[in-house]
Structure formats: C-alpha cells, structure tokens
C-alpha cells in the first residue's frame, strides 16, 4: 500500500527545484514512475511530498549538434529515444538498448532521467551511456553542475546527487571517428533486466590499433561500474580474439557481483567474461567500418 503523500505539480523545472529545495529528504521527484511506484507500493519508500515533473515541457527535448553531441531533457521517454531517427543515425546502440528495455508500455511512460536517477545497477541506459562517456546535468535551486556518469553512481540506488538536486539533462558526447559502442544483457526473457550486462566502446586509431576502450558492466556490482582492467587490456592493443578473451577475463576478475536466485557469483563472472569478449569484439568490428 502506498503511504499518503502530498502531490505537487510544478509548472516548470525551476519551480520543481524550489519545491525540492523546500522538502529535500521528505520530497521525491516522480517522472515516469515506472520504478518508483513499484517500490512505493512495497512500502519501501514513503515520501511525504511527491513532485511530479513528468509533464514539464522544459525538460522534454532532444538536440544534437556535432560539437556538443546529444542532449536529452530528463523527461524524454524511452520510446522517444527509441523512435528517433536522429538517435538511430548518430547513436544506433541507444536505439538497440531501448528496444530491449522492459516492454513498450514501460518505455512509453518511463523517462531517461528517471531511469538514471533510480540508480538500479541492472538498469539498461547507464552502462551504454557511461561507455559512451556520457554525463548528466543535475540542478538544484542554487545552480547546476555536470557530473560524468563515471562518477555519478556511488552505491546501490545511490548517486552523487544531493537531496535538493535532480537530473535535468543527459549528455552524450559526439561519437569519435572509428568508434562504436555495443551493448548486450544476459537475461532469460527478452523483456527482463540483465542478470548481467556489458556495454563496450572501442575507438581505433588509423592503424587499427585500439586507441580507447570503455567497458561498462551492469549488475556486476552494487552499481554500474567501469571495467578498467579490461580496458587496459584493450587500449593500445592490436585487437584479436585472444585480446578480447583476455579482456573478458580481466572484467570477470575485477567485477564484484553478488549471488541471487538467478545466478551465482561465479556464473555472473563467467557471463561477464563472455559478454565482455563478445561486445568488445562486436564494437571493434563496427568501429572498423564506421567513419
């Protein structure tokens, strides 16, 4: 049973931030609510004030320019991203990821900002965006700051945001030349979250050597994490199956998964190793042919 709360409906982001500043720890932003309402119904979260930003037009936008990359307002729905021709052209992996995120109903109502703020280690967008070097702009009544997704997640369901802050924008830098990102989650049902998930971005230099690599693991620790050891294996290497294999093993060794009924810790590590190998290779293959 959801506990009683006062419903607040700001007319603008600014007004929402004012409300948030006022209620801080007792207030909770709701946007799509696709994750929040579940835990509220379990009684796990009992805010006194619910601030609804779902309909805020000033947070619902998507822009792209070659210099700054993609900017998405926090209330942009998953479905909008999935259906965007611009995103499909510039960041095809985002569309692939969105198509596998839960079900159409959830994507229709759920938002990118809400998803990232929820900080579920098994969430889909975070690994992909983090692997592309994405960041979020968070705002409070007193100002704005940009936090790299690398630094955004601090623990299970916890972020670097203060209680008076909320995500207002998601920023994805432009894709470098000879670079590609691939994402896959391992799940039992198509619509499930990943038992584990891996996003890999590979950037090649002119000679086909790996110039940069970002490997991000979903549900392999209490938060979305970079697999920095795996990245080290890849960066500077002439990529081949043996290197991908090694990167997979490195990722499996450095992640910190916990066991649950769906998979043991050992099996999760095994899956991380396989998916890292596969995604790094897939990203490499695409990077080779991409402009």
């Amino acid at each position, binding site marked *: 049973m959801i506990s009683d709360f006062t419903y607040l409906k700001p007319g603008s982001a600014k007004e929402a931030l004012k409300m948030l500043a006022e209620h801080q720890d007792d207030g*909770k932003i709701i946007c799509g609510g696709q994750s929040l309402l579940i*835990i509220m119904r*379990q*009684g*796990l*979260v*009992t805010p006194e004030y619910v601030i609804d930003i779902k309909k805020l037009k000033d947070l619902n936008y998507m822009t792209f320019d070659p210099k700054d990359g993609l900017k998405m307002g926090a209330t942009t729905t998953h479905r909008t991203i999935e259906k965007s021709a611009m995103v499909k052209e510039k960041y095809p992996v985002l569309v692939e990821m969105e198509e596998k995120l839960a079900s159409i109903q959830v994507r229709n109502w759920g938002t990118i900002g809400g998803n990232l703020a929820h*900080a579920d*280690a098994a969430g889909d967008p975070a690994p992909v965006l983090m692997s592309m070097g994405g960041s979020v702009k968070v705002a409070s009544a007193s100002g704005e700051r940009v936090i790299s997704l690398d630094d955004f997640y601090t*623990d*299970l*369901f*916890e972020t670097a945001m203060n209680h008076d802050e909320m995500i207002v924008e998601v920023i994805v830098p432009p894709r470098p030349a000879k670079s590609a990102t691939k994402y896959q989650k391992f799940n039992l049902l198509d619509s499930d979250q990943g038992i584990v998930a891996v996003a890999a971005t590979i950037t090649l230099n002119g000679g086909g050597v790996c110039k940069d690599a970002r490997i991000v693991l979903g549900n392999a620790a*209490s938060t979305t994490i970079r697999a920095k050891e795996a990245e080290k294996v890849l960066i500077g290497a002439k990529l081949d199956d043996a290197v991908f294999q090694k990167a997979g093993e490195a990722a499996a060794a450095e992640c910190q998964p*916990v*066991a*649950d009924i769906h998979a043991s810790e050992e099996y999760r590590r095994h899956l991380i190793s396989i998916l890292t190998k596969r995604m790094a290779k897939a990203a490499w293959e695409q990077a080779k042919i991409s402009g």
Partner: protein
Amino acid sequence: MIIEGKFNINAPIKKLWDTLFDVEALAACLPGAEKIEKLDDTTYDVTMKQRVGIIKVTMSGKQVLTKVEAPTHLEMEGEAVDKTKLGHMKDKITMDLKELGNGEVEISYKMDVNMVGKLAMFGDRVMRSKANEVEKEFVKNLSAKLKAL
C-alpha cells in the same frame, strides 16, 4: 544468506575486545546504530537505521550473546523487526579475533541472516552491498576510537 568478511585493526587484542563490549563506544563506531542498550548480561536492545538509496530501514530488536570466550570468540543471535513493517530478520553472528603478531588483530565475522517480508525482495543484493559499506565505515571508526583511547 551468509555474509562473511574479515578486517584488521591495529590495537592490542584486550583493548579491542573491551571496546567491542563497551556499549557506548560500539554504538559510536557502528554506522547506523541508533541505540545499543544492555538489558542484562547477555541481552542487548539494538536499533539500527540503514539507508539504501531512497529506501530507509530501521530495524530494532534484541541480540543475545550465546557464547563468549574473551578475548577471541563471540557468538550471538537475534531477531529484529522493521519499524514500518517492511519485514523482519533473524541473525546468527560469529566473530573471531586473532592476534597477527605485529600489533594487529584480525577480526573475522560470519553472519547468517534470514529476512522475511518486503525487504527479502531486495534481499541479497542490498544486504551484501550494505554489509560491505558498514564494515568499511566501522573499521574506520573503530580504529579512530582505539587510537583516541
């Protein structure tokens, strides 16, 4: 669910042991401990408040010492209920202290935790991630406390 871990503390074993039994000192070191009250020789009234992101849990209940072998071995078990009825938990905790020789003591612990109710939905993931964090914080606080003593 079993959670195990160990950590080292730089202190004489006797001093460490006494600190662990000093209710006020322990409460000050244990993150989230709102109340630790000694009811009798073996029974403690404990209230712990933990926060996992937006989820707040306040567990309160009794812990009973079932075996005490100063200054190396300790066993206790207890039961606690969440304030907002999110669930209740039962636990059995074993703790061993071992002198490593270089002035360091290794504390190893094993907790067998059984949760029922809404909390169990998040179960393992939350508990393990939290245990890790609590441990780190505890070691930090305890070390500082021991130094100050």
